[in-house]
């Protein structure tokens, strides 16, 4: 068996763990690109061909990459660009403009950003872009100047493409796509979106100028592939500094994946979502439990991580409520049961609560109405209850109609776990009728 070079002084276990964390975190959090996209070979080929033609032949193109969140749209584009830029001919011949619909919320900002990214602002020098109109004319002029054989192609990447469609008149999209359809500077417009109906958002003129190329990233991933992905994501690479540790780790990962309980948990995740991002979240939680005392990954880790992932946000919030507030929530639950989800107001809740106090309570005080009101308002602040749309602000607070945004099962779960919950309250909550 070949020993590592640093055989005389094996790395201390602490350092190994640090290295492991560094390596895997980079992979899970930084979105390090895989060397090959297994699931989307065809799409990769299509996009690569398209962008290559823009870069090399100066052919203008427009394309949309559509796929649910976490399906690897950005990864696909990045992979394609990485492969594309390996070609020498392309390297110097491609300008990139990256826009994001969440950042460039209107065309004015987007135009400024384009100008900046194309390094055109130093053409303008000290001249301040007076108006939006000037900026648009300026940019169109710039793009018009070009012709397809001499001008450097420009790649426009529009992330969250659907948000650009909400801009006024869709001016930016119209102009970009118009350039891509006319003999001006060669451009490739690549839109990334998760909306399947994105084309319906486009105005008819804009739509007509779009080439109607859509690359769909719909993963038809099977569970075995998913499991394989988990294994490969957790495995350490061969060039890990401490080889012995890496081998141990990898074999532990292997056995970990074969464990039945782990498989069950992963299957549950898989059933819920095929999204890699949520998988990475889960693995990240597992990874954070790895330490010197716990140097290998164990099924318990993933169990705990999964519990964190699936825990219900609202019932967690209930744990932090005061007993009075919890009582009000239970009263609301009973009202909901009785009136079949009809809205309620403070008075109704208070009455329900008072009835409970009269009937069975021996652990609760009878609070003053303002105190109960305060608790009620706190629930509203937490958005556990919300006023229904129609009720105007004019009505007195006591009579404002509210709805509970909690499901019964969430309340039950919270009751189970509520620390030191008085038994009578627990019973009141569990009982079918108030």
């Amino acid at each position: 068996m070949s020993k590592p070079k640093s055989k005389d002084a094996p790395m201390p276990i602490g350092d190994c763990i640090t290295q492991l964390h560094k390596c895997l975190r980079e992979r899970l959090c930084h979105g390090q690109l895989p060397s090959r996209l297994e699931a989307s070979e065809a799409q990769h080929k299509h996009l690569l061909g398209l962008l290559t033609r823009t870069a090399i032949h100066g052919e203008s193109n427009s394309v949309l990459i559509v796929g649910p969140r976490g399906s690897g749209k950005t990864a696909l584009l990045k992979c394609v660009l990485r492969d594309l830029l390996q070609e020498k001919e392309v390297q110097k011949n491609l300008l990139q403009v990256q826009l994001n619909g969440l950042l460039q919320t209107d065309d004015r900002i987007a135009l400024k950003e384009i100008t900046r990214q194309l390094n055109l602002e130093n053409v303008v020098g000290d001249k301040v872009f007076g108006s939006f109109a000037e900026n648009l004319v300026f940019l169109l002029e710039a793009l018009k100047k070009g012709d397809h054989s001499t001008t450097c192609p420009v790649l426009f990447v529009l992330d969250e493409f659907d948000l650009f469609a909400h801009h006024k008149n869709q001016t930016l999209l119209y102009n970009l796509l118009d350039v891509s359809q006319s003999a001006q500077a060669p451009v490739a417009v690549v839109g990334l979106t998760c909306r399947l109906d994105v084309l319906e958002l486009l105005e008819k003129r804009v739509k007509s100028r779009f080439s109607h190329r859509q690359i769909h990233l719909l993963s038809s991933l099977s569970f075995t592939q998913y499991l394989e992905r988990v294994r490969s994501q957790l495995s350490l690479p061969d060039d890990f500094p401490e080889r012995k540790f890496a081998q141990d780790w990898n074999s532990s990962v292997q056995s970990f994946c074969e464990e039945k309980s782990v498989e069950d948990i992963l299957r549950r995740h898989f059933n819920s979502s095929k999204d890699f991002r949520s998988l990475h979240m889960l693995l990240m939680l597992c990874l954070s439990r790895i330490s010197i005392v716990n140097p290998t990954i164990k099924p318990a880790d993933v169990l705990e991580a999964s519990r964190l992932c699936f825990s219900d946000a609202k019932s967690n919030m209930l744990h932090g409520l005061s007993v009075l507030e919890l009582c009000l929530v239970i009263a609301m639950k009973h009202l909901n049961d009785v009136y079949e989800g009809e809205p309620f107001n403070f008075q109704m809740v208070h009455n329900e609560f008072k009835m409970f106090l009269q009937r069975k309570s021996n652990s609760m005080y009878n609070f003053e109405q303002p105190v109960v009101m305060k608790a009620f308002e706190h629930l509203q602040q937490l958005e556990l209850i919300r006023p229904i749309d129609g009720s105007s602000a004019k009505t007195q607070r006591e009579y404002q109609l509210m709805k509970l945004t909690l499901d019964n099962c969430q309340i039950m779960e919270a009751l189970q776990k509520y620390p030191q919950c008085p038994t009578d309250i627990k019973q009141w909550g569990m009982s079918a009728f108030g």
Partner: protein
Amino acid sequence: MKTRLRVRRVYKWQGEPLRFDRKLKNFEYGSLVISVEGLPRPNIINTGQCILIEGEEEDNPYVAQVNKLFGDESGRQKKAMVQWFVRASEVPVSKLPLLGREPHPQEIFYYQGRGCNEEVNAESILRPVQVKHLDGPAPFPDSNDKDVLYVKLSWDTKTFKMMDSAVLPPSTPPCCPKPCHPNSFPSSPPAAAPASRRANRRAISTPGTAVIQRAASADLRYAGDTMSTGKVGLEAESLHSATKLSASKCLSTKRRNAAARTPGVRKRLELCSPEKKSMPFSDVLSQLLDEELESEVELAQRLLASPPQVLHPTYSLTPRRKMHRAPADTDSLFQKPSVFMMNKLSACETDSPPSKTRAFSSMTEVDNENSPMLLVAATPRSSKRKSAQLVSTRIKKQLSLLDDQQNKDSNTEDEEEFAPSNKTLCSRSEDDKLIHGDENVLVKEGRQVLAGSRVPRSKTTLSSTRTPRITPSKKAATNTPRTPATPIIPSRLMPARHPTNILEVARTRLHVSSVPESLPCREQEFQDIYSFVESKIIDGTGGCMYISGVPGTGKTATVHEVIRCLQNAANINEIPSFRFIEINGMKMTDPHQAYVQILEKLISQTATADHAASLLEKRFSNPAPRKETTVLLVDELDLLWTRKQNVMYNLFDWPTRRHSRLVVLTIANTMDLPERIMINRVSSRLVAALSGDARRCLDICRRATELCEHSAANTSITRLVGMSHVMDALDEMFSSSYITAIQSASVQEQLFLRAVIAEFRRLGLEEATFQQVFLQHQALCRVEGLQSIGVSEVLAVCQRLGACRLLLLETSRFGILQRVRLNVSQDDILYALKSD
């Protein structure tokens, strides 16, 4: 224009009316007095005098000669009948090459075209101006005096002709007659500084011609006040043509007789050589000059007064000179072709002069290859003359100095700058603006070595427009309102690869951007639009047309095709020339920007929207002597809709003005737009005859070629695009992605969709709250034997489906109360889930 408006002018008739026209009920007067506030001496305008008339551009008022002054009985209305002159800037750019040289900035042309209102409001007269007739071959006096204009040729919207000096009034006080032959000046060499300046100037003037001859004077104003060499040949030629044409004029007869003494070729040579004064033709010249002595006097005085201006004669020599020293410096090699063209022309053209103008300009297009041969042929001739040699050596010296200077600036740009190609001609036209502006600024800054800085300056500006980045300091200098920065996307370092196989060629052709030779299925519409615009152009009237159709049916393409054909027709003089302007409603941020863009494209002047609107209003409603029709294409008209509709109203109103000569073609998708905005002047419509979008069709075909390429790469069978490929492409583009999306969704997502359907069925509604669906979902989970999952998790599932727009959701703030709707039909979902 504002400054001018502020000056108050008072117009009064001078003297009693000369006569009274009974029919028209107006009095004719001999002169008009214009007194300007703040100026002690009023201007007096007499009939026959030349005047400036308020125009659209402040800097370039119209020039005309008063033929008649008359007013009505009340004396309120004062009118004038005028004979127009046009400035070079008013001549259509496409026609300027016919001139065959750079127009002098102070040069005007006697206007003989039709369709020009000769009656103007006398109140629009600004002041008198001096117009001097210059003889054909005579060079322009080099003066910066803006108040003197020179006329040599006449312009009848088609050709430049030699103008008869008799039509022009003998202008202004005759002083002591001075027999100053302009050609006699250069023999006295000026002091060192002027000499260098002259040399520099010449150096710039010749590249100017080289570029101009080739590139049809894209930057015509730029070389403005430098003499162009091309002039010589053309003028001599047009003189010749004029003599043949207007035989009736006694003056020209005289001239012709004189000219007839020497054969044409000789004459031309003499014309260009100032040294040979003894030749017969110089007699003719002096004779002519004697006749026009009065007008020359002032010029001569000025010439004497300022030594650096005494340059014209040497200018006229430049072509010869150039060829003589050409072998010495590489820089000038580029200029040779055009120069020699002229010589060659002069030799062959004498027999059929009148129609030569166009031939001339076309001949200058001839390739470089001819030049060496011509060089050989021409050199001996010029070297014969001693004096010429003498001057040329001097110039050579100056030029070598200059070259050093240039080399410092840039070596590389030279080829680029002078590379003769028609492409540069087109692309330069924008650069021109920048150059022009640059020049202005520099002049304003008062660079001490004006002439010396000329060449390098023009070089740097040219180079800077080619390279994308301009140093900020430089840009700061050009920061004048009239110089919009013209940005350029950096050009690629490696040339684009050309299509190598037949599929790639097909793909380039199928790209939407490529313009087809013909537009099939659009013949009728083409004909309609063509005849409409053509008739309006010929009549010199205005009109508007509304073209509608669904996107991608070829509205814009058809109009562009029409304009292209019309422009071709205009180029071969079938129809009067016209101006084409295009704006697009989508390409502006605000409807009112339309005014700004129209104005910018019309007279390249930037203004605010309001100001631009008023300027345009004025332009289209005043009976100014507009020389050509403007064709305005307004694309995406519906975007110009405003609450008050003033933009659209104006666009449709201007063409109906009597003097506007504006044809407006509007394009929009909506068929009912005219009704909606209540405009009845709808001339025609383009109904979408094609069922569908041509753009999309092209895209489908393009995709099909790609698919074909892919499949061929796999199987290496014959590469032919079959119907199957087209069908595949169609499928790919139009097949609903929803079903695949559902099929590839996770188990819980699919389950949730089923829960939604189940809940809808239960409720009998197409809408449910999340809470209701959640209960269904839990029930389904139990049925399927899956572990039940929490609210948060199901909410996440639901949000994911909402993000894909398989579901329509309210905002997630509502939590479990948010309402859920399907964005796909229930059948689709069931189908997708069943086949799974």
